[in-house]
């Protein structure tokens, strides 16, 4: 056989072999082994040690009750989660059994079929009825529950009591006052950011949009369309972008800041204010500003109003391909149960998702008031569609903010691009 005649034959064979791109099969049914290693993915936090301690305690308890079971935890950086989870979806054999993930990603993760439907497990779980219904709603996609709500993430305004007292400032009552205060702080103390906030911090931007009456998107007949180019949304975005200016938080340092980095800067004593979550309280408490800060709700546009906060929160989900389905669900239930929700609250200071636990801790901890008030004033959520994960990981809103603060585009231009990009994802 001649070389020349062999090559086309080989090529033709290869073409015939597969005419469509490779797909990994749909996640298998998984298994129900009762021993072996249970793989768990948890999010890395601004200060991981207390969270790690609480999780380790749960692991010790779990391993003591299940002989032959080892729990292996991997810490996933929040900003890098899209890549990690994509990898797990494409290769179910390397996926974890249990994973912590944000409620904004539920729709898109559910769409891949990689997560197990936990509706039945929750119905049979003793703490299941105690879950706050509005919180449980954020764990649903197409009516099925894909994760156990572990804690609620609500953001509020952290401010330095010592700096405010020294400069004779009162906690801001409106967003305009917030900007003014930030300005004054930076003017009086040039080594502080007036408010530490960043171009890569969409969940600080959204309260500004919502407080001004804007919305991310609207849904007509099941089809989503972005409304970030409405006058209200534009007012919100430009209000937020005004914080990332040389006289408050210089773009050279702040344009690329994430939420975690801004709260780290505040905890390190580098800022007069910051927008942070209930889940950041321990990180701040262990920082340089311990005893010198207080928390209030993010104000709205009129005195006395509260800007609608983003109803964030993390869930514990089980992968459908898990070889230890029951063990995985049991471990998730242990972590999300009363005992460890209280321990997680003690460790991280974040709001529990079980009604009874939330009431109990809020009664004993006045510093939770800002978060509880914010929830009472009404929260909002991102568009409940699989497209949101993509919009989030493509950094569409942060890019718009960054373009504005670096002077690359004006508000109209940047938001027009963002709307086009979002609508492309909505399809």
């Amino acid at each position, binding site marked *: 056989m001649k070389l020349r005649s062999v090559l086309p034959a080989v090529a033709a064979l290869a073409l015939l072999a597969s005419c469509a791109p490779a*797909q990994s099969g749909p996640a298998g049914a998984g298994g129900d082994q009762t021993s072996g290693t249970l793989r768990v993915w948890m999010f890395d936090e601004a200060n991981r040690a207390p969270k790690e301690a609480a999780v380790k305690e749960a692991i010790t308890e779990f391993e003591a009750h299940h002989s032959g079971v080892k729990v292996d935890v991997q810490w996933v950086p929040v900003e890098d989660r899209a890549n990690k989870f994509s990898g797990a979806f494409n290769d179910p054999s390397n996926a974890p059994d249990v994973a912590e993930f944000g409620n904004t990603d539920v729709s898109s993760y559910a*769409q891949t079929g990689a997560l197990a439907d936990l509706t039945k497990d929750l119905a049979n779980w003793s703490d299941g009825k105690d879950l706050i219904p509005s919180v449980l709603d954020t764990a649903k996609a197409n009516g099925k529950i894909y994760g156990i709500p572990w804690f609620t993430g609500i953001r509020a305004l952290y401010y330095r009591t010592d700096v405010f007292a020294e400069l004779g400032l009162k906690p801001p009552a409106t967003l305009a006052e917030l900007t003014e205060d930030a300005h004054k702080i930076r003017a009086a103390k040039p080594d502080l950011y007036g408010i530490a906030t960043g171009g890569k911090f969409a969940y600080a931007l959204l309260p500004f949009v919502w407080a001004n009456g804007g919305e991310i998107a609207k849904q007509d007949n099941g089809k989503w369309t972005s409304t970030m180019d409405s006058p209200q949304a534009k007012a919100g975005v430009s209000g937020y972008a005004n914080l990332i200016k040389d006289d408050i938080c210089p773009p050279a340092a702040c344009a690329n800041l994430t939420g975690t980095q801004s709260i780290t800067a505040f905890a390190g004593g580098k800022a007069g204010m910051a927008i942070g979550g209930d889940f950041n309280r321990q990180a701040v408490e262990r920082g340089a500003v311990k005893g010198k800060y207080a928390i209030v709700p993010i104000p709205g546009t009129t005195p006395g109003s509260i800007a609608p906060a983003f109803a964030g929160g993390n869930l514990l989900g089980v992968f459908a391909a898990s070889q230890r389905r029951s063990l995985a669900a049991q471990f998730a239930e242990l972590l999300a149960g009363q005992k460890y929700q209280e321990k997680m609250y003690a460790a991280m200071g974040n709001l529990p998702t079980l009604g009874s636990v939330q009431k109990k801790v809020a009664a004993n901890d006045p510093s939770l008031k800002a978060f509880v008030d914010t929830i009472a004033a009404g929260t909002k959520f991102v568009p409940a569609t699989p497209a949101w994960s993509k919009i989030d990981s493509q950094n569409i809103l942060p890019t718009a903010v960054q373009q504005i603060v670096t002077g690359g585009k004006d508000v109209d231009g940047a938001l027009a691009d963002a709307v086009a990009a979002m609508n492309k994802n909505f399809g």
Partner: protein
Amino acid sequence: MASVRSAQVRRRDGGAALRYLLPAGILLAALLVYPIYQLVLISLYDYGQPQASGVAPLVFLGLDNYAGLLSDVQFWTVLGKTVGFAAACVLGSLAAGTALAVLATRVRAFPRMLLFLAALGAWATPAIAGSYVWLFLFDTDFGLVNEVLSGVGFTGMAHHSWTFGTFGAFGLVAAEVIWCSFPFVLVTMYAGISGVPKETLEAASLDGASVWRTSWSVVLPAVRPLLMIATVQSIIWDFKVFTQIYVMTNGGGVAGRNLVLNVYAYQQAFAGQEYGLGSAIGVVMTVLLLSITGLYVRSQRRSSAWL
């Protein structure tokens, strides 16, 4: 009779060639042809995360991904920046490498050894480690460079952010890329220059040629094939830069203004979960690189009798 025998010999030769080529051929097919085949195939489909996981049906798009890409303003912006960035890196590493190669031929053994050790150290440093070291050196608040600059009187540089401005960030990354890719040029060109026969150089100087004349008319033609290899390699490497940009500009700079094609493809494919579109970018990049390299090799072939 003779023609029959020569045909038999040819056939035996063909068989032998096939057997010799088979191991490399299998390896290439498995590691190169098959992935590229998959890449092209995926680029023709609407291939997102649900399709990759096998829960959504595949939709054949034909060339829609390419049409979408070519009509996207951002793609052209990123392509333009990539070409400019790669050109600067190629010229920089060729200039630095060649200049140091010339230097190496003119100094004594000990300094030459030091030069080579330093160059090999830079060459051996993994891209990620190198990027982080440079980031530490040029850190806004704690970096050695800012400290030294403000110490010697440039007080404006005290808290200068090197990675913020579009050109600043590209310049810093380009410097790092040049730093870790000039050693290859240095080693190649040093071998070339020291390979020029002494007699030829002597003859040139006896004929009264100046140093410049000798370099231009004797040494340069002699090292031309090597220079071409170094250039082609540099073009391919620098056009495909990923790690340095990804690490040093935090995934493409503020508002993505420091994106290069490879990082852009990665973001579309993995962060955006648009594997189809990402593959299309990959295919376009492969075609671009092949044609740039092809054109360059052809132009060199025409202008010199050495190849």
